[in-house]
């Protein structure tokens, strides 16, 4: 093989004769000493290795470095450093959204992309309306973060941290209806302290009144 050029956190790195088997994660950690991204499962199951490639979150353990010359790669180091924390990094600190911290770089990279996905109106599995999902809801954040495992189970505070940033960055940019009824549905005002314990109430599910369609709400719609 010849020379591979990777652009990571706006900096170009030249790699000579890299073994084609090397994953993007291993290049960062083993060759370039960019050790923010963590190796958890190495099989795309835990999310600790999450990075952004061209702004999109991916499992860097499940992609080969040789496939990514010319791509814009961002690791946690490119999201923000101690002297220049991103809003999400600050929110994770403020909300005590970690214990051991091993999954945190992946959580923050993942959540950084999640916010962009919400801004772009991407739906999720739990969106009642595929055309107008409200990505700020508790169950939306939990579903959208399901690719990031936290074995310390800091989920309640991870969701709080993400919710806080979503509320400040998304509420005014969304085209959907103003969030007059949303106040009770967001995690900041919610009694939900864990992701699925207890199951979200109808109010938390975005239903202000009893609605028999709740159970089916996220399975379909008319074409």
């Amino acid at each position, binding site marked *: 093989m010849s020379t591979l050029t990777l652009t990571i956190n706006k900096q170009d790195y030249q790699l000579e004769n890299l073994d*084609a088997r090397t994953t993007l994660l291993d290049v960062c950690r083993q060759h370039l000493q960019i050790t923010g991204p963590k190796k958890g499962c190495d099989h795309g199951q835990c999310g600790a290795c999450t990075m952004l490639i061209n702004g999109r979150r991916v499992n860097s353990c499940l992609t*080969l470095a040789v496939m990514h010359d010319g791509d814009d790669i961002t690791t946690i180091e490119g999201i923000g450093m101690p002297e220049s924390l991103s809003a999400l990094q600050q929110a994770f600190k403020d909300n005590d959204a970690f214990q051991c911290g091993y999954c945190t770089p992946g959580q923050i990279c993942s959540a950084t992309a999640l916010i962009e996905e919400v801004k772009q109106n991407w*739906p999720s*599995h739990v969106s009642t309306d595929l055309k107008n999902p409200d990505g700020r809801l508790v169950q939306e954040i939990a579903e959208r973060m399901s690719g990031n495992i936290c074995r310390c189970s800091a989920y309640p505070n991870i969701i709080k941290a993400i919710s806080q940033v979503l509320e400040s960055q998304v509420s005014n940019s969304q085209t959907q209806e103003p969030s007059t009824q949303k106040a009770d549905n967001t995690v900041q005002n919610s009694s939900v302290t864990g992701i699925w314990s207890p199951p979200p109430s109808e109010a938390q599910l975005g239903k202000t009144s009893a609605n028999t*369609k709740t159970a089916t709400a996220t399975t*379909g719609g008319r074409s």
Partner: protein
Amino acid sequence: MKRFEYSRADAPEQAATSASTEDTSFIAGGTNLLDLMKLEIETPIKLVDITRLELEKVETTADGGLRIGTLVTNSDLAAHPEVIANYPVLSRAILAGATGQLRNKATTGGNFLQRTRCYYFYQTDSACNKREPGTGCPAINGENRTLAILGTSDACIAQHPSDMAVAMRLLDATIETVKADGSTRSINVKDFYCLPKDTPHIENVLEAGELITHVVLPAPVKGMHTYDKVRDRASYAFALVSCAAVIDADDNGNLKTVRLAFGGIGTEPWRNEEVETLLMGTDGNNDVIAQAANLLLNDAKGKGQNDFKIPLTRRLLKQVIQRALAGEGA
């Protein structure tokens, strides 16, 4: 991971030619392939990277359908306005699978080619007729809770893992390919997969080097589009039983459109059009649904741990039909 020779394709025909040699794989999203290569379940000696091909567009077809480039990611397809508006069952199915990170990488063509998640297939020190033909199937009398009840054989009961492919089967999608000699063909998803029979290692009709270039959806089908997925966790788990459906009723409450396809229960995405015919024109009462379930599950074989999938499928079928008739699901 075994060593392999890496190359990048510039054109679909060239990719097909490069990949027509033995033990060569295409790589696009790579989320399943690299996982399997790390475990040395897949051991290609050549990898042809197709990610730079111009196959990432979604276009409208002359007859009102959609032509989806094979490299369109699962994320982009699920969030595509045309898919959300006219094929919501496809959006729902894709969003029910994997995670945000995986859907960002996983491609339309690659999703069809996912390998099974049977434990014995993944465990390289076990026998497995799919991984090592002729070695036997410990799953039949072993850990088979997640495995298939329909389309199985004495050689293999591995389930097909995809959610997306279930919706594609429901929508009568067609897979377009190019072969190493430059010729092209269209394969209906119905004819794409092979039942395991005594050759479970042969999973589809693709020839060596044959590249999926596009997936074509016919014009939309009006009705309630739903995708229900029963699984062990609320998110990021494969289906125990799933059901993709398009259902519509006339003014008298009789079923005028019924399409049903199932995941988690078949060795391939499972659709039985006779079941749909039986239900068509009826009011979806309990008796007719029981008959439909009997027909669907007539050949179903539980192997112990997965026996529960038979009653679970019956209940899911009833739920899907009667909920749609009640006008719910939207």
